[in-house]
C-alpha cells in the first residue's frame, strides 16, 4: 500500500515578528534623546598682535558688569533688564549709516562676575539686535526676519549687523 506523502508547508513562523519588532521599538524609544541644542552663538576673535583699530566713541556701547552684577552702560548705571530697551534706539539710529559706522556693543566683565549675569546681559544685547531686525524686516518686507527669503535676509543682515565685542576682563570697580 502506498500512501501519498503530505507535503508540509515550509514556512518560518512569523506571528512573533511583531513582538520582536515591538521590543526593538521600545528599546529605541527609550534610548532616543530628542533634545535640540540651544544656546547663544558667538564667534571669538582671532589672536593677533596688532592693537585693535581705533573706534570712534559714538559707535561704541560699552556694557560693564562688575562682581555684584551691577551694570554700567556708557558710564550710566542701569539694571540688567534695561539693556535691551536702552540699546534698541541706538541700533535703530544707525541703520542708515554705512557699514563702518554701525553700532558695536562691547561687553566687559569682572573676573568674579557670575556667569548667569553675563549670559543675561548677552541675551539682552542679542534680543535688542533681533528685535530691531524683526521690526526692520516687518516695515520693509512685511514679514518677520525668520520668514524672509535668503536675499532679503542678507539685506537686513547688512543693514543691522550684530557686532558684539567680548573684551577681556579686568578688575571693574
Amino acid at each position, binding site marked *: 500500500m502506498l500512501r501519498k506523502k503530505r507535503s508540509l508547508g515550509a514556512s518560518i513562523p512569523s506571528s512573533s515578528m511583531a513582538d520582536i519588532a515591538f521590543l526593538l521599538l521600545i528599546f529605541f524609544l527609550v*534610548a532616543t*534623546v530628542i533634545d535640540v541644542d*540651544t*544656546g547663544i552663538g558667538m*564667534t*571669538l576673535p582671532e589672536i593677533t598682535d596688532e592693537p585693535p583699530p581705533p573706534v570712534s566713541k559714538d559707535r561704541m556701547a560699552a556694557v560693564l558688569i562688575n562682581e555684584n552684577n551691577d551694570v554700567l552702560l556708557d558710564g550710566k548705571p542701569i539694571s540688567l533688564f534695561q539693556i535691551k530697551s536702552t540699546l534698541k534706539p541706538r541700533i535703530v539710529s544707525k541703520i542708515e549709516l554705512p557699514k563702518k559706522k554701525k553700532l558695536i556693543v562691547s561687553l566687559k566683565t569682572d573676573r568674579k*562676575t*557670575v556667569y548667569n549675569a553675563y549670559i*543675561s546681559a548677552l*541675551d539682552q544685547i542679542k534680543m535688542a539686535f533681533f528685535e530691531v531686525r524683526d521690526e526692520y524686516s516687518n516695515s520693509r518686507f512685511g514679514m518677520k526676519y525668520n520668514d524672509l527669503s535668503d536675499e532679503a535676509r542678507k539685506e537686513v543682515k547688512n543693514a543691522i549687523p550684530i557686532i558684539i565685542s567680548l573684551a577681556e576682563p579686568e578688575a571693574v570697580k
Partner: protein
Amino acid sequence: MKFEKKRASVKQEIPTASMPDIIFMLLLFFMVTTTMREVELLVDYKLPDAEALEKIENKRLVSYIWVGKSGKIQIDDSIVQIDNIRTIMYGKAQELPSIIVSLRVDVGGRMGLVTDIQQELRKAFCLRINYSANIKI
C-alpha cells in the same frame, strides 16, 4: 418558532498582517533619529536661561566643554586641567575645521574661568562657540 440571530456575513476582524510593517517603520524612524549618549557626566551643572537662542543645526560639528559648580572642566570623558584644553581642542579643530564648541557652564560659575577657557580656545583656533542655555519660559 425559532429565533435566529442574523449575522452579517462581512468579516469582523482588523487585518493584522501589516502590523509588523508599521512597527518596523516606526522602529526605523527611531533608529535613525537616535543619538546615543556618548559621555558620562562627571561634573554637576545647571544651565542658565535665555531668550535669544539659536539652534545648532548640525550636531556633528559640536564638541562640548562642561564646567561644573566646583569649577571642574570636563571634555569628552575626563576632567581636564585648563592648560590641556588648548592641545585637546587644537587636535579636534584639525579633524573638524568648522567645529562649534558648546560651553555648558554652571549658572554660578565665575567669568574669570570662562574667559580663561575662551582664551585657550582662541589659541586653539576654535573660534565658533555657543553658550548653551535653556529656553526661558
